[in-house]
């Protein structure tokens, strides 16, 4: 960030609503209780929004207890921003109510599609990166941000396929959507690494294309290498050394930023997860 961008820095700090160096954990079911007595290193948690949008009271009661102890940010997986059909306004209503109920500093979801033609695939699916998709995506992202009445961040995708139709690089597409929507980025460094290996692009060039004055938060996570060599964003292992190295470069370019560790399968104990999170502080020291 340039020294002349104090206004942007102030806007960013306000949007984050978290200390710039905060460390957080993606909260998953095994830790709903133990997080209440977590190491003070864990400064906030992120929850999957959809797990708390239903009618069942138990998840919401758990979340209220956690919110009394820690700031909570919301991370969605079903917005379907790039689906061809109109956005689901009832989903947005429920999401806005949830964000209000936990006073979430910001809400994030993915720059992807999840369903089409009446079928929800419950996966984060890629698309060609094209000029005509930028305006479509940005308009919808801006709408989401207005509806939520709080900062909305888009996460870059990990992907396994590319499309002949693409005319833009992924990072140019990502940056253009965020800029056009005047929304925010939720940069996942593991996703950058996974996609860079799968599509043979330079992850440093990707980072160089990121406007860090719009980065609300950075995700780190583990991935799996399949026998074919394809990297898959599984979140079932510790963070790979190559991802830590990329994280350090992101920090050098655009830090400080809140950093969150995700783990969705083979979830270890909370102390073990916290020790891995502590590595983020060590890496960037």
């Amino acid at each position, binding site marked *: 960030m340039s020294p002349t961008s104090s206004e942007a820095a102030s806007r960013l700090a306000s949007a984050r609503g978290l200390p710039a160096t905060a460390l957080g954990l993606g909260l998953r079911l095994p830790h709903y209780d133990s997080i209440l007595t977590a190491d003070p290193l864990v400064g906030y948690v992120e929850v999957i929004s*959809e797990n708390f*949008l*239903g*009618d*069942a*009271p*138990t998840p919401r009661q758990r979340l209220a207890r956690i919110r009394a102890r820690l700031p909570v940010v919301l991370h969605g997986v*079903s917005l*379907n921003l*790039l*689906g*061809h059909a109109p956005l*689901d306004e009832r*989903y947005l209503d429920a999401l806005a109510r949830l964000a209000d109920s936990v006073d979430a500093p910001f809400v994030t979801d993915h720059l992807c*599609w*999840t*369903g*089409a*033609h*009446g*079928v*929800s*695939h*419950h*996966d984060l*699916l890629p*698309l*060609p990166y*094209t000029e*005509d*998709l930028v*305006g*479509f995506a*940005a*308009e*919808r992202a801006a*709408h989401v941000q207005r509806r939520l009445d709080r900062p909305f961040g888009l996460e870059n995708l990990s992907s*396994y*396929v*590319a*499309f*002949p*139709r693409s005319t833009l690089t992924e990072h140019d597409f990502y940056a253009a959507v965020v800029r056009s929507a005047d929304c925010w980025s939720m940069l996942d460094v593991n996703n950058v690494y996974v996609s860079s290996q*799968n599509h043979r692009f330079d992850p440093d060039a990707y980072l160089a294309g990121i406007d860090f004055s719009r980065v609300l938060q950075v995700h780190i996570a583990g991935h799996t290498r*399949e026998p*074919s060599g*394809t990297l*898959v964003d599984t979140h079932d292992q510790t963070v790979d050394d190559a991802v830590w190295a990329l994280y350090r470069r992101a920090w050098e370019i655009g830090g400080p930023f809140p950093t969150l560790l995700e783990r969705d399968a083979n979830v270890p104990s909370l102390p073990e997860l916290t020790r891995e999170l502590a590595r983020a502080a060590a890496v960037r020291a």
Partner: protein
Amino acid sequence: MSAHETPSWLADLQARFGNTLRTPLDRTSGTLTATPATYDAALVAEVGSERLAVYNRQYWFRLFGVLHDAFPLTARLVGYWAFNEHAGAYLAAHPPRTWDLDDVPAGFADFFVARATANVTTAATGASADAVRIDAAYREVFRAPPVTAFHPSADDAARLLDSRLVPSPAVAFVREHFPLLELRRQALALGADSSTRLAVPPPLPTPRDWAIVRGESGTTSILLEPREAELLGLLAAHPVGEALARLESACPESERAALPAATQRWLARSVQLGFWTSLAPA
């Protein structure tokens, strides 16, 4: 939200991609396998078909996982391989329609019972039919919205016989012909990472009826007396007075003398345990 039109190619590409990732996994090798040779090869660039298999597998295994989690007893009882065969057929007929993954299992129990018992009725199919209904009951009770239990006032007592008791969505009633609630506890204790199959236990001498009840401290199971279960079923369908009359007329002569006191006790217990949310006109 209309300045930018939807790109003309978007709906078609998403239809083709969606069809590809919903391609059924092949079972002929004895393991669930993606078949990239059958994909729409023009959809993606370069090494696309093999990479598309990642999405294809993710689609199915994520949804199988959701159904395993929602039906832990059933999956253990029939075994994951057989369970996934039913799950695959269900998902092909009823692909997910909403953003909520928890909606995916909504119709599975009925689908499973119809399919599993279509051509064969053995102890194993009977047990699996009981199991899927028990799993479904736990799921429904957990997902029910917050409820306020009905506590009758003096006025309510006066109009009770001509009114209906409204069942709480946080309570479900199940019947087991095998000791399956205990087996479900064992299934849950095994954890999601274990694929151990549980044997079908010997049948019970007589069926048992349970209320699955969501309370302040979690979900519990309450064993019901046979006639109590019958009463609760009648109360869910009829005004209170009519339910009591039907119970009495169905009751053998030998039980009639004890019935009024027992009925009072069962009604009081149902209110105490929060089986009802209100009293409604008949």
